[in-house]
């Protein structure tokens, strides 16, 4: 177990190193930035001073280590597009908005996926089961950005129930949360259904029935409590991938989170900002995956030995 965890941590670190090298290389792909900034006939001493000031006269590997050391301390340099802010400030501001959206998505998945999953398992081959199957299938096939626009059109434009974009009160959060949670609803539904089917087949449920407990009580109290463990652990740790998945939904609803910031940074070729967001997103993603793997290895010993 310890060996597995250490290996997994080393591997996560390796991914982060690879991504940081890519981020660093992309920053240098455009050539020497001084060529663009200084006029052609610039004085050699001015040039040397500036090179000294920005540290571009040092060998590449030294520059890389400085870059990583600064990034680890949360210093990603300055944004070109928003000159008054540092990249770290911009990211910090948007980070909370993205967490909020991802959390709301998980909430949607729980509120819809859990009860529907229970119903599909209890009434097999009924109308509930078929609806559940359709929802699960659509969850895999619907492009979320399109779902977002359709929701916006129906509930924002035609019915005028919710605002179409931006951030404000709870009413701004509902449509993007449904759009981003949709895929998770499908995943939740399948998980709840299969674990409910297992539980419904168990001895203590039979005992509860023999005792003459009301069927409703058996299903929603006895079964669900036991069946919900696996889906809930899955959801607690899916936050990382949900955050990365938020890029397109944030862009659709112009939600001021990290994903929308990434989209805008790409449009305005704001390299420092792009690098910073890429490193932030990758770190979240890699750490989340690491936690998932460790949690699963803890719960399922077979994983450790393969």
């Amino acid at each position, binding site marked *: 177990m310890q060996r597995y965890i250490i290996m997994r941590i080393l591997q996560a670190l*390796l*991914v982060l190193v690879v991504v940081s090298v890519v981020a660093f290389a992309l920053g240098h792909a455009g050539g020497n930035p001084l060529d663009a900034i200084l006029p052609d006939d610039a004085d050699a001493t001015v040039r040397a001073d500036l090179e000294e000031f920005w540290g571009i006269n040092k060998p590449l590997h030294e520059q890389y280590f400085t870059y990583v050391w600064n990034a680890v301390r949360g210093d990603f340099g300055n944004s070109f597009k928003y000159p008054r802010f540092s990249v770290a400030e911009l990211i910090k501001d948007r980070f909370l908005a993205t967490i909020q959206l991802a959390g709301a998505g998980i909430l949607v998945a729980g509120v819809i996926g859990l009860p529907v999953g229970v119903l599909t398992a209890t009434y097999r081959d009924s109308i509930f089961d078929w609806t559940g199957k359709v929802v699960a299938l659509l969850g895999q*096939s619907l*492009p979320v*950005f399109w779902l977002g626009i359709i929701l916006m059109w129906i509930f924002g434009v035609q019915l005028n129930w919710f605002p179409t974009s931006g951030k404000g009160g709870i009413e701004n959060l509902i449509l993007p949360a449904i759009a981003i949670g949709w895929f998770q609803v499908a995943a939740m539904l399948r998980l709840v259904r299969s674990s409910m089917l297992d539980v419904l087949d168990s001895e203590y449920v039979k005992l509860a029935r023999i005792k003459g407990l009301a069927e409703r009580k058996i299903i929603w109290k006895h079964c669900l409590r036991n069946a919900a463990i696996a889906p809930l652990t899955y959801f607690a740790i899916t936050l990382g991938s949900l955050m990365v998945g938020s890029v*397109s939904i944030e862009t659709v609803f112009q939600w001021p989170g990290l994903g929308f910031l990434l989209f805008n940074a*790409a449009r305005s070729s704001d390299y420092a900002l792009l690098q910073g967001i*890429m490193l932030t997103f990758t770190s979240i993603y890699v750490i989340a995956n690491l936690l998932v793997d460790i949690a699963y290895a803890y719960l399922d010993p077979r994983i450790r030995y393969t």
Partner: protein
Amino acid sequence: MAVALPEVSSPRRPSRIGHYAREALRYPIIPVAVLVIVLLIPALGANWLAPYDPLKGDMKNRFAEPSVQHWFGTDDIGRDVLSRVMHGSRVSLLVAGVAILISGLIGTSFGIVSAFYGGWADNLMMRLVDISLSLPIIVVAIVVAAMAGPSMEILIAVLVLSQWSRYARLVRGEALTIRGHDYISRARVAGASNFRIMLRYIFPNIFNTVVVLATLQVGFVIVLEATLSFLGAGISRPTPAWGVMVADGRSFVTDAWWLSFFPGLAILLTVLSMNLLGDWLRDKLDPKQRNL
């Protein structure tokens, strides 16, 4: 001695409609039909079938609602949406097809070689697979496209980067079991080279698995391509691609719902049918891989 036989009712002749309905459920007729109509026919025949030029605008006819002349309406510079959707299927099919072919080739060779040689080479190669699986691909794609400028080549490269490792991991697992079979050692005794064993003895046995995975991945790749195009990291304008069309329609959602609706519907129908077809193919060709 007469024995009372139980009366045998003559078997009821199954109704023709019921028979066809059951057959239709047994074979994925509907998904295949949808794929042919939405993807294949437009992709091959868009030049002749599309009623209008997908690139030529008509400024007198902007934002025309869906009508007999323009079934799917027209967009902000008067281009026919139906023609653009039809040409868009060509882009989707081309990008997804090439990306899946390349990632399948790379991933399969990688997996077979990794399983065949084993040891530290296998270890190293599988760590590479792990790394590529743990990259947040959308983020990487956006950053790369922003730095290098979006193009179809870069889009395909990014899709391959996100896909090849899935084939490698699956193929390696299969190849490991096959490597242990007797006929592999016999082929070696008979003087077959390593390359020959991998190509002629191992590869044919995992071909089905690769085909099933490829079919199941088509839908995913099409959605990924559309998402990247939507985010400006894929196909660039004015080439008609479904993701780009949905993105362009977003700004006009209050006045012209059809701009985003129809290209998105094309994505949905294609991906849905591909997934259904993939499920069916998996049950047919490779029933052990229920968890693919």
